[in-house]
């Protein structure tokens, strides 16, 4: 602890005492930089991107294809810019303010409820399949078939049953999101280390306790990865569903992007796309930190 290297030159006690303080200060600056460098780099990076875009958009000068940032921001507030909006027979009045926000909300609802259902139903199915050979044998052909099938191919069939309303959107989100949850949960249960189970048995755990105290905690990080996958797959599902149904009902971000692009409204198209990108980014980052919080032991052992 005490200074081993006492320099001969330092004669004053005050100088010796000030030295650690100085080091502390240096260390703090380093620490601040270490913490801040990634956000700072990202901000610089994105600013350069934005500047280049703005410059390119001005040079290219076709707002239908590459709008400027300022017009995107404008579109975010007032929605449709310019002509071509036919408000009759449309779900949303495209000329109203904050049309992006309203459609965003439609998407979030379908997506959120679809995801919650996928998680609440997918986890128990995965647990049962992992825990019981019978359930596994009975369910796995369906699970594997559905999870390998491009879910969008089911759309025409689903239309027959569900029509083009909200139901088919929920169906598509659930069909895309539930299988990663099921399969990951199943994999967690299946790969639980035998030696951990043996240890629990030696110390007196019964079947239920082994499941509760070993298999479930072991499976938890797998479930989290499954949910992460479900989040991104489900988002694809909801956007595609909105592409395909939106014109007839309820809208949503997917529909808005589709509709705006069809009307050559570049500003609105890109503004809606960016809202979607931000949503996806927030979700991915959010689940990353969720994984670190829920299963810290796994996070570190991975690096």
């Amino acid at each position, binding site marked *: 602890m005490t200074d081993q290297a006492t320099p001969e030159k330092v004669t004053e006690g005050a100088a010796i005492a000030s030295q650690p303080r100085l080091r502390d200060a240096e260390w703090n600056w380093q620490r601040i930089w270490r913490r801040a460098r990634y956000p700072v780099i990202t901000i610089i990076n994105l600013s350069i991107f934005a500047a280049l875009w703005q410059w390119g958009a001005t040079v290219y000068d076709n707002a239908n294809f590459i709008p400027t940032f300022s017009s995107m921001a404008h579109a975010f507030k007032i929605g449709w810019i310019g002509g071509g909006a036919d408000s009759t027979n449309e779900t949303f009045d495209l000329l109203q303010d904050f049309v992006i926000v309203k459609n965003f909300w439609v998407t979030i609802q379908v997506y959120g409820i679809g995801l919650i259902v996928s998680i609440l139903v997918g986890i128990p199915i995965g647990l049962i399949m992992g825990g019981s050979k019978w359930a596994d044998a009975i369910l796995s052909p369906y699970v594997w078939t559905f999870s390998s099938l491009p879910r969008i191919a089911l759309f025409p069939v689903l239309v027959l049953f569900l029509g083009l309303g909200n139901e088919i959107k929920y169906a598509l989100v659930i069909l895309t999101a539930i299988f990663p949850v099921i399969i990951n949960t199943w994999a967690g249960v299946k790969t639980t280390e035998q030696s951990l189970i043996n240890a629990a048995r*030696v110390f007196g755990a019964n079947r239920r306790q082994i499941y509760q105290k070993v298999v479930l905690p072991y499976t938890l990080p797998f479930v989290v990865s499954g949910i992460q996958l479900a989040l991104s797959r489900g988002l694809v599902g909801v956007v595609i569903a909105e592409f395909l149904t939106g014109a007839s009902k309820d809208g949503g971000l997917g529909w808005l992007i589709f509709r705006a692009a069809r009307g050559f409204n570049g500003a609105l198209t890109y503004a809606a796309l960016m809202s979607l990108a931000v949503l996806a980014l927030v979700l991915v980052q959010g689940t990353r930190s969720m994984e670190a919080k829920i299963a810290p032991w796994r996070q570190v052992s991975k690096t």
Partner: protein
Amino acid sequence: MTLSNGVTTNTAGRGTPLVVAENLTVGYELERERKLLTALTNINLTVHEGEFVVLVGPSGCGKTTFINAVAGLLQPWEGTVTYQGKPIKGTSRDRSMVFQDYAVMPWRTVEQNVRMPFEFRDSGLSNSQIDERIQTMISDVGLQGFEHSYPHELSGGMRQRVGIARAMVTQPKLLLADEPFGALDAMTREVLQAQLEKLVMNAGQTVVFITHSIDEAISLGDRIAVISHRPGTVREIIDVNIERPRLAEGEITRHPEYGALREHLWGLVKDEALGARGAVA
């Protein structure tokens, strides 16, 4: 020194038999290849109360399999293995185990791992007694200050000590220890070996102990069972008649019998290790 050849040893003067394996054959079902693998065949071995039995033998000969059968994790294919005269059907509070691969729960802190045995079985102790036991045990293995660390924050040797503490915290009648000191540095190992010997001398702890170290086997064992290569069987049981304490007194290696014992044991183990590699039929 008695080098008793063969599986039958003179058991006079020992305590009452605690674990008796008779013609024990056990192995594993290889699900993928749809066949059975015999790990141990025709094992005859008796562990008496208060006795320290060491198992040595080449890697893969079935040492872990044997103590798994004694723990009650595996059922015999043929023959029997009994505890206090009754066939072992499942695990018991009497028989605790240190696992070769530690088997500590990664989502539990050191303290929570050591507490595990108390969660599943009623120990008859009050909560404060349990807390005290856990605390003492953690200090005994030198992990004080790490109570709230997770296994991934510990070194391999520290994790192994968590496994040791967890196995011993309930003061089991029979301790099954699968290479418990394998990952430890020489100093820590000596400290823990001495602690274990003290426990054997003072409390009459019964131990079945697996090691790859011949010196450790001689330092700790009352008897050393040499297991042949797979399918393993008891090749020879060697009595170590060196008085205890062997470790507190310092160099056991200077004991007059040590050299001959070591040489004999080394010959056997080498023979079996070569056999396992197919050099000897």
